[in-house]
């Protein structure tokens, strides 16, 4: 059955399907129960699966991730919602020193298949701590897989893949794109979906590669459309860790130019690693240095400044121009 779904509703539908398929799947977090989450991503799940499987937790993120680990050790597959990106940090210890390392610590005797769902990124006019892009912290941490989505189709499938994965997965949801819609064939087999580790060529092109993920994919596609002079290939990265370098370097070798756009701050953002790595692997193919278009190295500013802070269409186009200035 093909349904027109927003990203938010597609994640909701994916969660529902995962919960139906496996009684061990739990949903937990602040306000995920009766309210259905502040973004309604868990809407109706409490009603249909009950309070034992859809758990309104105390207001304590370390507790959410820490008890999820315990539930996973007991054989459950908890899907935790961290209400906003900026409220992940109280859970940093449980995520970085426990969740990410338990498998390795146990020499593989233990799996902790926990999913952390985190609405992330800016652009919604919010107060402080509600617009962060913390993906670099996760991607720098061995033991975690980090994925993000840019459309409803991927949202529906990738949340299910994340839940099925025996690795802990940080599932980043582009909150300002929650209402973007697409047709989703919700009856297809999970196995038929593209693996969540694979990057996707969202728009083919020949003159430069424009790489984005999550909320910036839409901006990248708009930029590619807007550029009438050059043929821009757009890659939707999907997996931030590990990065699908095969797809990325194949594209860059063809186009000779790479522009990376993300909302995370520039310095030590995911673009830094991709730029360094692609330069290593495509040194003789690059006509220009890899160009990065990112947020500035400042705290996310008050919302009246966010349109300047976030890379927008113009900044991405400016980045493309810079790539062609060499």
């Amino acid at each position, binding site marked *: 059955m093909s349904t027109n779904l927003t990203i938010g509703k597609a994640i909701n539908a994916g969660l529902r399907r995962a919960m139906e398929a496996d009684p061990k799947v739990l949903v937990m977090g602040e306000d995920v129960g009766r*309210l259905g989450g502040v973004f309604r991503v868990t809407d109706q799940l409490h009603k249909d699966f009950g309070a034992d499987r859809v758990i309104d937790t*105390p*207001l304590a993120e370390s507790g959410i991730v820490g008890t999820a680990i315990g539930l996973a050790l007991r054989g459950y597959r908890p899907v935790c919602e961290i209400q906003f990106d900026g409220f992940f940090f109280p859970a940093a210890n449980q995520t970085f020193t426990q969740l990410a390392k338990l498998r390795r610590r146990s020499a593989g005797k233990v799996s902790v298949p926990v999913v952390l769902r985190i609405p992330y990124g800016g652009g919604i006019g919010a*107060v402080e701590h509600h617009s962060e892009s913390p993906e670099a912290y996760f991607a720098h941490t061995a033991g975690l897989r980090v994925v993000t989505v840019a459309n409803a189709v991927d949202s529906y499938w990738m949340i299910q893949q994340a839940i099925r994965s025996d690795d802990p997965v940080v599932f980043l949801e582009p909150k300002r794109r929650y209402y973007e819609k697409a047709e989703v064939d919700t009856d297809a087999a999970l196995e038929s979906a593209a693996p969540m580790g694979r990057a996707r060529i969202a728009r083919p092109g020949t003159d430069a590669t424009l790489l984005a993920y999550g909320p910036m994919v839409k901006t990248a596609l708009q930029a590619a459309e807007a550029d009438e002079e050059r043929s821009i290939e757009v890659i939707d990265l999907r997996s931030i860790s590990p990065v699908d370098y095969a797809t990325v370097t194949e594209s860059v070798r063809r186009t000779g130019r790479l522009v990376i756009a993300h909302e995370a701050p520039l310095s030590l953002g995911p673009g830094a690693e991709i730029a360094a790595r692609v330069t290593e692997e495509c040194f003789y193919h690059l006509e220009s240095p890899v160009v990065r278009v990112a947020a*500035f*190295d400042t705290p996310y500013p008050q919302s009246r*400044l966010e349109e*300047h802070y976030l890379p927008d269409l113009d900044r991405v186009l400016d980045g493309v121009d810079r790539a062609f200035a060499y």
Partner: protein
Amino acid sequence: MSDTTAHDEPELVQLLTPDGELVTHPDYPLEVDADQARSLYRDLVLVRRVDTEAVALQRQGELGLWASLLGQEAAQIGSGRALRDGDMAFPSYREHGVAWCRGIAPRELLGMFRGVTNGGWDPDEHGFQLYTIVIGSQALHATGYAMGVQRDGALGDDGEAVIAYFGDGATSQGDTNEAFNYAAVNNAPVVFFCQNNQWAISEPLDRQSRVPIYKRASGFGFPGVRVDGNDVLATLAVTRAALQNAREGNGPTLIEAFTYRMGAHTTNDDPTRYRASAELEEWKRKDPILRLRTYLEKQGLADEAFFAGVDEEADRIGEQVRAECRALPDPGPLEIFDEVYAEPNVHIDRQRADFADYLASFEDAGAEGGR
């Protein structure tokens, strides 16, 4: 849940019944003369008006968000008025009434909700720190500050005390509990003021605590007390006593102000999704303003002219808030780079300069007739 809760319903310190009757409490004697009572009433009404205006401004698109204090006026004015000049308050994000008592103009609060600043007032000038959104964080800041007060030798009858505000939900956070312990171990002059408004967004109290919140303190070795947070007199008396205890060097107290969030969590929230309207109706009968007004009327401490005067003042302030909100200046793009660091930072300077060039390129392009 076990039946631990049921057993011992906690005693609620109350000096003014919901019917506006003055009662006494052995531990919390309070003398309020007519002037003081009227002035408390005035504060309650005015902060409610500021709050109502802010909600309306949000509806009109002038604010991005607002966290209403509706129903919590007495808890805030009572505790805020208990503070002395040299004291320091560490608020969460809903303490508009306390801010009022500390002399912060409503305009300054609006800036953050409008998105033109992230806070911005001078904490030292007002004895009121910036709003803190990450739940629980400020409880530790307050405790550290109080440890500084100790080190400054600023204790004693005329000494300084510190107060940390947070909600019922915040008592679940590790930071809040660490603060309780640091304060206890260091015997720090800090009062933990928990406004238990029964809800943390959609989660009722029983998701946060198995027992009444004021009990948490005893586990850390300091006193906890539950006060009727809709009773401005009791809140004033209990907070004053706890602050005095702190400033005299006797360490922390946890005050649980039992109150109710009569509005939505914030303007983004829709409480009809998770709570029964009957509950709200019940709490409307305990309205903190009504209660004090009844008292004033019954005792003949205020006449119609007084109430009308306060309402007029509220109208004026409402108007002022609307005007000032709209007049709040937008920050300029390059302010993104300001005050990230105290000291010169080559990296930020470079990004600022590059961005200035980038912005200028549009102006040039504009002058030349488009990009």
